[in-house]
């Protein structure tokens, strides 16, 4: 991958190489935390912050690290970054820190982060690494919020419950109760529901991609996307 363009990086991170739906990395937090949209959003943002700072750091030091020890060094960088972010959250965003609990330090084990460090940040310039971190992180966050939202609606009948934990007073207005007196659908909230939900999301993405390919193959190309991306 020589000098990938900014547009390419963004498309890869958000859709074509989405860490949650295509690369299937970081599934542990993805499945465990997406019991509600707000939980997914909180963890997604923390992961994005970690991913971006880790990518930038790894890119900055990429010429100083010998290949033989690059993985331990990346792990050191990621673990230090997560520890610092965790301390900072405890100091300045204490409420959110308490809610996300153990999933903040678990970000260290998220394979997306070391995956991007190894396959992208260590081989690209800092600006591209930064963008890749943002794009991958936001792509991951979108999956977290979507899956969390779906599981919350089907499982609890609400959407954005406990939004006040992230958004304060304003958050109370965001919370929707979509189905009154909902008895709840437990399967959606428990791990099997997470696997099923993720499966449906991946299937949905594949359907959308297949339709796009068919359209392009038939020559019905939407304006502005004349040449299909090669990746």
């Amino acid at each position: 991958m020589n000098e990938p363009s900014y547009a390419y990086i963004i498309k890869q991170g958000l859709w074509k190489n989405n860490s949650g739906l295509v690369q299937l990395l970081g599934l542990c937090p993805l499945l465990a935390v997406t019991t509600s949209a707000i939980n997914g959003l909180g963890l997604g943002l923390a992961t994005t912050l970690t991913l971006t700072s880790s990518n930038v750091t790894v890119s900055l030091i990429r010429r100083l690290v010998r290949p033989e020890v690059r993985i331990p060094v990346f792990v050191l960088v990621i673990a230090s970054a997560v520890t610092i972010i965790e301390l900072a959250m405890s100091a300045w965003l204490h409420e959110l820190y308490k809610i996300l609990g153990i999933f903040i330090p678990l970000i260290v084990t998220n394979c997306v982060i070391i995956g991007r460090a190894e396959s992208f940040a260590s081989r690209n310039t800092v600006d591209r690494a930064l963008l890749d971190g943002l794009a991958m992180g936001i792509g991951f966050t979108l999956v977290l919020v979507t899956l969390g939202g779906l599981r919350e609606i089907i499982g609890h009948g609400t959407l954005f419950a406990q939004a006040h934990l992230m958004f304060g007073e304003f958050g109370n207005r965001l919370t929707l109760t979509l189905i009154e007196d909902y008895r709840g659908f437990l399967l959606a909230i428990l791990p099997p529901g997470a696997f099923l939900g993720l499966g449906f999301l991946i299937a949905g993405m594949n359907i959308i991609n297949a339709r796009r390919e068919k359209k392009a193959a038939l020559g019905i190309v939407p304006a502005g996307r004349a040449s299909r991306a090669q990746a």
Partner: protein
Amino acid sequence: MNYRQILITAFILLTFALIGTALVAFTFDNTRERIAANERAALLNKLNRLIPPERYDNVLLEDTVQARDEKLLGTNEPVMVYRARKQGRPVALVIAPIAPDGYSGTIRLLVGINVDGSLSGVRAVSHRETPGLGDAIDEERSNWIHTFDGKSLTSPPLERWKVRKDGGDFDQFTGATITPRAVVKAVRNALLYYREHQAALFENAAPDRANEPVRRPD
């Protein structure tokens, strides 16, 4: 690889380890006080939800004593008791017992008890109960925890301090009995402990930390 390359590689790893550790230590040092203040504020917040600040005029976080009773308080470790007083007279206290028999481990509780033995409230502060099932003990998830407000060992009477399934007066959750059963039992035991040690729990009202011994009332 020859020895020199190995040494250089090891040295690089060591350097990064030192830098990483130094950065973490630096952050830790510079956030330590803020974090401690945040924790204190969060704890005081929780206590105030059980005993509203208008009811007391002492420094709740510092007027404390420790209680230990493995059978009634759920742990062999000493447990914190925060005492609220108004003009020197005891008003209420908050005790922090543990429900050891939750579905997924222990449940830490805060139990607010007024001087007359009635509950000012109960909260579950940490647990690992199943999301969507046992986690209904969280105030944010459901109102269940508020069924304890105002109750005491006479209302309902002691024999009825169980979940309905066991012949008592307390609701359990559909699909989750173990969790509410553990919490009801722990609250009942906390009330029993209070009844036994009421006078001792409020003794040694010295607000000055230096003079206050760590007591084991019993």
